[in-house]
């Protein structure tokens, strides 16, 4: 029943009484920062008209708004000198480890999602959402295949008048390395380990789609529903997000963006670990 927090010399991540990440403390300042898993139900169309297609392999088309997967998260806290972790269980098919390594200025979130249940005959598209108090005023940034960050404005296109009839999918962009929001004071960026769809549907929010399982073909050509299975059950996906939160001030050196860029190199081109069993072959003295 105590307040749960993990951290290091640089930052502290706080959790609320329901087990959700709730705040982050950096440089003595505490900011609200929530994280949760939610899902959209895939739209079912008759595929006969352009505006009546199902959500499928080619198109993300949610049927209405998102739903949270749970109100209460079961957690286990693991603390050591090298790393501190909170193990979260959201439900039978979503869990996550939130960890902070000693000396590191970012938070690592290792998510595990699946098999997505379909016994209710509804396709589901699962997202991880981060909520902050950053006043981003409809603007967010997404990467361009790992290179420059492109400015995106919600419900807006630079070269034509937009009449957006799909307010969620119409604001989704491909995220292959990073998505970020910021205002005059703070900045939040999430790096990912694989291509995912992502958006900022509300000021201060970021979301990334981590897994999807759909039951209808979208009639764009594949001719199959996006319903992967392994060993007779829906497929399980495991991956990582890396969260940076801090000052957006450009006068601070190195800037948060510079730190994000270095981390991007490190996580996308990590050291390769090779292991070799040396029982009865090589003693430590031999190795030296």
């Amino acid at each position, binding site marked *: 029943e105590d307040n749960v927090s993990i951290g290091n010399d640089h930052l502290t991540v706080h959790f609320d009484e329901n087990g959700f990440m709730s705040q982050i403390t950096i440089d003595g300042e505490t900011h609200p920062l929530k994280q949760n898993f939610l899902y959209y139900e895939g739209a079912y169309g008759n595929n006969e008209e352009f505006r009546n297609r199902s959500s499928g392999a080619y198109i993300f088309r949610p049927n209405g708004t998102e739903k949270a997967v749970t109100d209460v998260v079961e957690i286990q806290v693991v603390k050591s000198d090298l*790393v501190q*972790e909170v193990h979260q269980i959201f439900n039978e098919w979503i869990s996550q480890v939130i960890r902070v*390594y000693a000396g590191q200025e970012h938070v690592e979130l290792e998510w595990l999602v699946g098999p997505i249940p379909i016994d209710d005959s509804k396709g589901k598209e699962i997202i991880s959402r981060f909520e902050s108090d950053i006043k981003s005023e409809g603007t967010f940034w997404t990467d361009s295949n790992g290179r420059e960050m492109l400015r995106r404005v919600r419900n807006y296109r630079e070269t034509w008048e937009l009449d957006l009839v799909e307010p969620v999918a119409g604001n989704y962009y491909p995220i292959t390395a990073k998505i970020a929001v910021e205002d005059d004071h703070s900045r939040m960026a999430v790096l990912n380990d694989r291509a995912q769809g992502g958006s900022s549907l509300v000021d201060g929010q970021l979301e990334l789609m981590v897994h999807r399982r759909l039951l209808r073909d979208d009639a764009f*050509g594949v001719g199959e529903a996006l319903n992967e299975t392994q060993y007779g059950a829906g497929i399980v996906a495991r991956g990582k997000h890396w969260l940076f939160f801090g000052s957006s001030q450009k006068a601070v050196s190195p800037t948060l963006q510079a730190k994000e860029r270095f981390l991007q190199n490190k996580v996308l081109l990590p050291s390769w670990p090779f*292991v070799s*069993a040396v029982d009865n072959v090589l003693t430590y003295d031999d*190795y030296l």
Partner: protein
Amino acid sequence: ESHLTALREVMGVMQHHDAITGTEKQHVADDYARMLYEAFEACSANTRSALNQLTGERDSFKFDWGYCKQANVSACAMTESSDNLVVLLYNPLGHSSNDFVRLPVKEGNYLVRNDRGQTVRSTLIPIPGSVIDLPFRESEATHELVFQGEQVAPVGYKSYYVSKEESKSSSSAAVMRQ
């Protein structure tokens, strides 16, 4: 060269737009996975050869270097079944790195030492139950041994000797709270 070409050719196939976006049929996705696996396996011989040349002691390494393909479910037959391991970290970046290493192991006491005779700080962290209970995971590993690679040189490597110990004065156990 033929091993490398096998992977080059598969990577060419993987540039098809359906492979990039995941809009291929399922049996095609399965075939892509098969092709990548076979090319990856072929190139492991090149990796082993390169590592033996890098370490300069070609004749002293009689064993196979391995990169575990079960790492995504925190499992590795080699790390969880051996009492003594050599772990080599190769840094592909143009600047030094200090990545953390996580090795799936059984519960116990482990000692991590570097090539200067020094003990490297390490800890044992339990693998989450949701990973251990995955139906297709075949592993005896219950924990991950965590330690930090120390300033691995750009495009260079560093190696560590990991041994399972009887005493408790080696890896520190993490404090857990439910």
